[in-house]
């Protein structure tokens, strides 16, 4: 399993400052949950000179809700996301995605941010990050920047994180009372890698019409994409009509094909159905929430 050729220095810093100083060295790589990185280390696909284990940084394991701002540390595990009653209430899309990701033992170690940073363009969390308008806090020794989700994903397994940088937090907004969400995907086996995914965050008004829609799809193209036309088409529509309108719009204006897909033609055929389902369930969730 391990190869003698894989020799790197292992460091387990106790402060973020230490970690960033280590990351500033050439050939350094960060270790979070390791559920994706470890096989790559073992096979030599990843060949760092310094491996920086973030496990000692307790400050990165927090989920904080302050007013409407949710901040999730980059070492928060998928299990923590699922067990967080705060996230379930304030941002249920993340809870739903985490439950659909991998399997229990992997979720015990794998992190939310690690899954996002792996940037599988078809996968539930990256697609949902677009729909949630999530923002990534990216730090380096001497500074930080905030990267919106639509700029974070650059290609299949490629993000805006540069050498020497570490994602420390994910920022999302807490849902309003009349906001609901859903993610809908298709995979060969439940909880195996998604082939195509659609996510919807929908806010309805007092009259029961769609006031705001944030829609994203993945599985067709190099990165998950916002469905701007479908979003526009939904404004003011009745909840009963919204799923059909979203599907028809996406069918009329399919996303561009790209490299990071299992089968682009399949994704193009399937995504309108997934988007229809996501919009339907998001509207239903919004209606339930506004009655609570």
């Amino acid at each position: 399993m391990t190869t003698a050729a894989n020799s790197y220095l292992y460091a387990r810093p106790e402060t973020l400052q230490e970690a960033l100083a280590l990351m500033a060295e050439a050939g350094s790589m960060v270790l979070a949950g390791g559920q994706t990185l470890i096989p790559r280390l073992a096979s030599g696909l990843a060949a760092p000179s310094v491996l920086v284990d973030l496990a000692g940084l307790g400050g990165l394991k927090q989920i904080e809700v302050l007013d409407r701002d949710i901040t999730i540390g980059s070492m928060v595990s998928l299990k923590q996301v699922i067990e967080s009653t705060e996230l379930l209430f304030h941002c249920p899309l993340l809870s739903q995605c985490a439950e659909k990701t991998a399997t229990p033992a992997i979720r015990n170690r794998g992190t939310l941010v690690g899954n996002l940073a792996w940037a599988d363009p078809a996968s539930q969390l990256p697609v949902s990050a677009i729909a949630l308008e999530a923002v990534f806090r990216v730090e380096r020794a001497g500074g930080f920047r905030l990267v919106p989700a639509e700029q974070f994903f650059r290609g299949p397994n490629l993000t805006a994180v540069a050498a020497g940088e570490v994602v420390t937090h994910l920022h999302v907004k807490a849902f309003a009372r009349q906001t609901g969400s859903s993610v809908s995907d298709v995979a060969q086996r439940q909880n195996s890698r998604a082939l195509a995914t659609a996510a919807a965050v929908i806010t309805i008004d007092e009259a029961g019409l769609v006031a705001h829609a944030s829609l994203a799809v993945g599985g067709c193209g190099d990165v998950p994409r916002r469905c701007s036309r479908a979003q526009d088409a939904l404004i003011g529509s009745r909840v009963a009509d919204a799923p059909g309108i979203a599907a028809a719009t996406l069918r009329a204006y399919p996303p561009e094909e790209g490299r990071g897909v299992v089968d682009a033609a399949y994704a193009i055929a399937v995504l309108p159905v997934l988007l229809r389902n996501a919009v339907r369930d998001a509207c239903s969730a919004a209606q339930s929430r506004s009655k609570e």
Partner: protein
Amino acid sequence: MSSSLNPLKVIVNGDPIATEVSSSLLLADFLRDELGLTGTHIGCGEGPCGSCTVLLDGEPVRSCLMLALQAQGCSIETIESVGTETELHPVQAALHQHHALQCGFCTPGLVMSSVALFRADPHPSRGAIGTMLQGHLCRCTGYRNIIEALESLAGIHLPSAKAEH
């Protein structure tokens, strides 16, 4: 080629271990090769199969997806700690009674996940058992006997399609 040696302190099946390991040594290989605990199996090396599952501070983890060094200061339980030579653990007894293993390769990992499941809740739901089993691939049994074993242990009684033996 020199590799970086780091001190490691862990507890394995109740025994404190203090040693030095290579930075690239996987936890699975540490358990199997350094400690001779070969009950933990390596199947896929990537996560899905679950054969390598051990308990880390009571939680199921994939030992093939961890460096030994990541277990620093933690307590690890492997299949060798489950049951004794004279008395099977209830999970093992249930699997035995329901013929829920054949080659046995996937079994240790499955047992570790089940031990953790039943520790947390002696009467897990069918859904909870199903979710746990999503993380374990078995090539031999077709899963039915595993499910029946765990459901019977959980106290979930179903009319069986097969005749009682």
